[in-house]
C-alpha cells in the first residue's frame, strides 16, 4: 500500500485548490463574536467568583472545579443546514470509553450522570458531585462547574493518570454531541475530549441495597426492573407493576398494583413500606461504575437505593 499512499499524499499536497476567503466578512464575524464572548464571560465570572474551594477530610471534598463559561455562537456550517435535534442530557448516565483519545483501561471505570441542574460521577478513583446549578444545557452547549470531588489516593498509576486526564476534560468541556448513541464531550474548538457509552437503567434487574437504609443488614429480595414506561418487580410479598413517567431526572409512579401472596407478617409490613415509598418517588438517577447504583428519592428525601445484579 506504501506506493499508493505516497501517490495519494502527493496528489493531495502537490497542487493548491483555490477556495475563496472573504477576509472582511471573517474579521467582522470574528469581532462580533468576541464582543458577545466578553459579555458572556463577565456574567459567568460572577459564578466563578462564588465558588469556594473546600477541603474537609481526605475522603470528603477536596477539589473544586470552577464553572466553565459556555462559548458564544459563531456562524457554523451546521447552522446553515437542517440541524439534528439536540438530545437533553438531564436524566442520562454514561460510562467513558475514551479520555483524550486513550481507551479507558480494562477493569477501571469513569462515569458521569446528568440530572436536572446537577452533575455527578466518578473518575475511577474519586467521585465528584455538584450542587444545584452545577450543570446547565443550552442546545449543544453545556456548563459544568461548582463541583466537589473526594480526594482519595489510589495506588494504581493508570487509574490516577486517567483520573487526572478526566478532571482536565471536565474543566475544558463546553459542548457535546451524541454520535451513534455515544456522548462526545467537546471543548470550545469542537475537539473531542472524551467519548462515553450510555448507561441504561432499562433492561436490568435492580435489587434493593441490603446494606443501607431501613433494611440494613437484611436482604429482603426486593427488586425493580424498568422497561420504558413500566416498572415492575418483587415487593417481598408478591409482584408489583406500575406506570413510570420520566422527564429528565424527575420520575413519578402511578397505577401501582401488587399481586399479593401469603407471606409472614414482617415481610408484608416491609413490602407495604417499600411500595408506599416507591409510589411517592419524584426523582431517579443512575450512577454507573463497577457497582452501578439506581437511586430513587421522594420529595420528602426518603431514598430507595438499588444495586444492579
Amino acid at each position, binding site marked *: *500500500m506504501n506506493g*499508493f*499512499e505516497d501517490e*495519494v*499524499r502527493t*496528489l*493531495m*499536497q*502537490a*497542487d*493548491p*485548490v*483555490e*477556495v*475563496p*476567503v*472573504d*477576509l472582511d*466578512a*471573517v*474579521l467582522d*464575524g*470574528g*469581532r462580533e*463574536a*468576541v464582543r458577545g*464572548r466578553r459579555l458572556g464571560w463577565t456574567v459567568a465570572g460572577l459564578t466563578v467568583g462564588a465558588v469556594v474551594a473546600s477541603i474537609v477530610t481526605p475522603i470528603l471534598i477536596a477539589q473544586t472545579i470552577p464553572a466553565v463559561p459556555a462559548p*458564544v455562537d*459563531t*456562524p*457554523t*456550517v*451546521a447552522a*446553515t*443546514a*437542517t*440541524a*439534528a435535534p439536540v438530545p437533553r442530557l438531564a436524566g442520562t448516565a454514561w460510562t467513558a*470509553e*475514551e479520555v*483524550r*483519545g486513550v*481507551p479507558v483501561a480494562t477493569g477501571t471505570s469513569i462515569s458521569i450522570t446528568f440530572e436536572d441542574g446537577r452533575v455527578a460521577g466518578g473518575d475511577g478513583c474519586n467521585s465528584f458531585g455538584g450542587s444545584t446549578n452545577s450543570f446547565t444545557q443550552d442546545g449543544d452547549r453545556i456548563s459544568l462547574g461548582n463541583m466537589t470531588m473526594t480526594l482519595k489516593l489510589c495506588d494504581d498509576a493508570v487509574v490516577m493518570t486517567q483520573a487526572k486526564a478526566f478532571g482536565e476534560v471536565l474543566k475544558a468541556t463546553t459542548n457535546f*454531541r451524541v*454520535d451513534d448513541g455515544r456522548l*462526545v464531550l*467537546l471543548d*470550545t*474548538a*469542537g*475537539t*473531542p*475530549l*472524551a*467519548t462515553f457509552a450510555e448507561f441504561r437503567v432499562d433492561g436490568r434487574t435492580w435489587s434493593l441495597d441490603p446494606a443501607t437504609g431501613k433494611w440494613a443488614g437484611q436482604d429482603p429480595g426486593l427488586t425493580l426492573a424498568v422497561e420504558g414506561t413500566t416498572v415492575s418487580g418483587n415487593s417481598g410479598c408478591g409482584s408489583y407493576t406500575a406506570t413510570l413517567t420520566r422527564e429528565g431526572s424527575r420520575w413519578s409512579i402511578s397505577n401501582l398494583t401488587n399481586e399479593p401472596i401469603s407471606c409472614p407478617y414482617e415481610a408484608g409490613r416491609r413490602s407495604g413500606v417499600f411500595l408506599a415509598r416507591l409510589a411517592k418517588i419524584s426523582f431517579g438517577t443512575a450512577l454507573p461504575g463497577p457497582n452501578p447504583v439506581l437511586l430513587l428519592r421522594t420529595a420528602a428525601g426518603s431514598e430507595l437505593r438499588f444495586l444492579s445484579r
Partner: protein
Amino acid sequence: MAQDSGRDAEFTAFVAGASATLGRTAWLLTGDRDAAAELLQATLVKTYVAWPRVRPDGAAAYARRVMVNLDIDAHRARHGTVAMAEPPERATADRSAAVDERERLGRVLATLPGRQRRVVVLRYLHDLSEHDVAVELGLPLGTVKSSAARGLAALRAALGQEEESHR
C-alpha cells in the same frame, strides 16, 4: 481598539499563509466549492475568536481541528453522503495532468463515508500520524487504522476503475 487592530494584523497574516492548505482541506472534506468556502469561512471566524489563546504557533492546528469538527457537525446535520459538485477552478485555464488527477481524487474521495474521508485527509494531506488522527477525531486508534485502510482501498479501486474506463 489597538488590541483589536494588533489581533487583526496577526490574524490576517495567518490567513494569508494558511488559507491555501485550509481551503484544500475544506474542499477535500466537502467535495463542493460552495460548501468548502462556507466551511473555511466558519473555521476562520472561530479561529479569530480563539486567537489570543492559539496564536501564532497553534493556530494552524487549531483551525484544522475546528474545520474537521464543523464538517462532522454538518455531516450529521445532512444525514447523508456528500454529492460531489464541480471542483474549484484553478486560476489558470490550462489543466495539467496533475490537476486532472487531483480532481479525480476529489471525486472519488467525496464518495467515501465521512469518517473515512476525514481520516484520509488528515493522514495524507496533513501528514498526521495515526495516533494524532485518533486524538484529533476522538476515535480509537484501531478505528483510525481500519478507516484509513478502507479509505485507501476504496480510493485505489475507484481510481483504478476510472483509469480503466479512460483507456
